[in-house]
C-alpha cells in the first residue's frame, strides 16, 4: 500500500486536521465528533443542511461545507457511514430554528445511522429534521425488495443547489421538496480502471487485469456490475451515458447540468477527454448542456476511473446553480 499517510488508523483524524488548517477561514472542525462545521453555523432562521458518510470521497462532504452549500458534514471512517452520535451532534450544531435537512446517500449503513440520529435529535432537542435520500446510480437495478440504487454524483449537485435554496431563506419543507425533485431529475453511472486500497485493509479491494475495466461501480471500491475489456474513451462514454439517457429518460430538448467526475486517481487531462466524448453524445441526443462540472468531486480514494451524472434542469435550478458558493471544494461568485 503506497499512500501519503501516517498510521492507517489516523487517516481520517489527520485529514481533518489538514482541512481545518487549510480552510480555517471558512470551516471549523469538531475533532471529537469528526464534524466539519461552516464557520458561522448555526445561521439563525436558515434551514441547516448536513450530510456525511464514510471518508475517502473527498472533497465530498467536508469540502462542501460553507456559504451556499452545507452547514456541517460528518466524517465516518474510510467507506464507513458515520455514527448517529455524530449526526445528532451536527444536527443540533446547525439548527438555527428553521429545522435541519439530512442529505443521505442511499446505502444501508448511511440510511440506518441517519435514521437513528434523527430519532435521537428529535427526542433530545426537539429539532425538526427532514431527510432526503439520494439514489441516482443507474448501474443498480431498482426494486422494492432490494437496498435500491446507490447515491452517487447527484449528491454533489444536490448539495450545491439545495444549499443555494436554503441560503435564500426557504422553509424546511420547501428545501426538502426541492431536494426530492433534484434527486428525481438526476442519474449517474461510473466505471473504474483500477481498484483502490482501504488504508486499514492494506490491499486493493479487487484486482483488475491490465486489459480490463469495471463498469457500474459505486464509490466504495466495490466491484462493479460487469467486467469488460478496456475500451477507448469514446466507447466508455457511450457505455456510461446510454443507460443514463434511457433511464430517466433524457432526450431532445432537455436541458441538463453535465458532470464528469474523476474517481480520485485519474488525471484531469483524461477527464477532459471523457467530457468531450460525453458532450458529443449530448449533441447527438439533442440535449442542451446548461452548465457543466469536470473534476474530482466524489471520489473513491485513489481509484482510477470516472462517473457521469446528468441532472435535468429548469431555469430555477440553473439560477440556484449560479448562486454564490464558497466552500473548499466548490467556489464561485464569492
Amino acid at each position, binding site marked *: 500500500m503506497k499512500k501519503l499517510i501516517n498510521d492507517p488508523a489516523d487517516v481520517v483524524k489527520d485529514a481533518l486536521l489538514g482541512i481545518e488548517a487549510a480552510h480555517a477561514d471558512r470551516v471549523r472542525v469538531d475533532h471529537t465528533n469528526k464534524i466539519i462545521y461552516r464557520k458561522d453555523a448555526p445561521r439563525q432562521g436558515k434551514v441547516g443542511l448536513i450530510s456525511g458518510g464514510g471518508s475517502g470521497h473527498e472533497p465530498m462532504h467536508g469540502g462542501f461545507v460553507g456559504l451556499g452549500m452545507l452547514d456541517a458534514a460528518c466524517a465516518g471512517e474510510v467507506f464507513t457511514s458515520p455514527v448517529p*452520535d455524530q449526526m445528532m451532534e451536527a444536527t443540533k450544531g446547525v439548527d438555527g430554528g428553521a429545522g435541519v435537512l439530512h442529505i443521505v446517500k442511499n446505502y*444501508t*449503513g448511511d440510511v440506518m*445511522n441517519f435514521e437513528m440520529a434523527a430519532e435521537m435529535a428529535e427526542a433530545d432537542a426537539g429539532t425538526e429534521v427532514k431527510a432526503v435520500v439520494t439514489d441516482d446510480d443507474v448501474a*443498480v*437495478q431498482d426494486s422494492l425488495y432490494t437496498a435500491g440504487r*446507490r447515491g452517487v454524483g447527484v449528491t454533489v449537485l444536490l448539495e450545491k443547489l439545495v444549499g443555494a435554496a436554503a441560503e435564500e431563506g426557504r422553509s424546511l419543507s420547501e428545501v426538502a421538496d426541492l431536494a426530492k425533485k433534484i434527486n428525481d431529475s438526476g442519474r449517474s453511472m461510473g466505471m473504474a480502471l483500477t481498484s483502490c486500497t482501504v488504508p486499514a*485493509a492494506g490491499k486493493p479491494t479487487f484486482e483488475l487485469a491490465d486489459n480490463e475495466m469495471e463498469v457500474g461501480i459505486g464509490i466504495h471500491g466495490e466491484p462493479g456490475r460487469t467486467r469488460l475489456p478496456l475500451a477507448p474513451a469514446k466507447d466508455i462514454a457511450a457505455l456510461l451515458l446510454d443507460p443514463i439517457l434511457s433511464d430517466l429518460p433524457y432526450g431532445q430538448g432537455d436541458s441538463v447540468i453535465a458532470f464528469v467526475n474523476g474517481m480520485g486517481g485519474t488525471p484531469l487531462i483524461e477527464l477532459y477527454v471523457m467530457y468531450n466524448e460525453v458532450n458529443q453524445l449530448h449533441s447527438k441526443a439533442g440535449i442542451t448542456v446548461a452548465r457543466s462540472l469536470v473534476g474530482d468531486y466524489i471520489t473513491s480514494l485513489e481509484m482510477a476511473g470516472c462517473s457521469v451524472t446528468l441532472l435535468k434542469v429548469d431555469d430555477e435550478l440553473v439560477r440556484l446553480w449560479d448562486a454564490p458558493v464558497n466552500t473548499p471544494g466548490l467556489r464561485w461568485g464569492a
Partner: protein
Amino acid sequence: MGLSVDDLGSWVKLFADVVHENAAMLTELDAAIGDADHGINMERGMKAVAAAVNEGSFETADALLKKVGMTLVSTVGGASGPLYGTFFLRCGTALTSVDDIDAAAFGAALRAGVEGLVARGKPELGDKTMYDAWAPALDAYDAAVSGGSSLAQALRAAADAAAQGRDATIPMVARKGRASYLGERSAGHQDPGATSTTLLVEAAASTLG
C-alpha cells in the same frame, strides 16, 4: 440459577476476542461483495465494547447489554453498527427486571434482539444478510428448549444452525446491503455479516452453558 451478569460479560468479551482474531477474514469476505471493512468495523466496535465492559461495573444484565448496544451504535457505523447495536439494545430491554435468566428467558431476549435488527434493516430470509444466520439459529434454539434441552444444548444447536445458515448464504444473490449492488455477481460468496453473527452465537455456546 440462570445466567449471571458475569456470564454475559464473558460472552461479549469472548466475542470481542474472536472478532479480533477473525477481523482480516471478515474484511476479506466484505472485499469480495462489499467494501472491505466489515472486520475493521466489528473490531473497532468490539474493542470499545470490551473496554466498556471491563471498566464499568454492571448491576443487571439489561444494563450490561444496553451498554454493549449503545457502544456498538456509537463506534461501528456502517450497516453493522445499527444492526448489532439494536440487537444488543433490544436483548437488554427484554431482560429488564428478569432476575432468573433461564433458557427460555435468554431465548426470548435473543428473539427480541433479532426482531429489533429486522425492524431496522428489513431483511428477509434469503436476502444474503446476517439474518440468514440468525433466523435458523433462533428456531433451532427454541426447538431445543421446548424439547427439554438445557441452555448449553440449546446454544450448541443454535450455533450449528447459524453456521448452516451462514454457509447457505454462499449461493444466494444478495437483495440487501452493498452486496445487492453486484446482482448475480454476489452469488458464490459467503456473507460477512452472517459470518460474524455465527461467531457471536458460537461464542455464546462456548461461554454460556
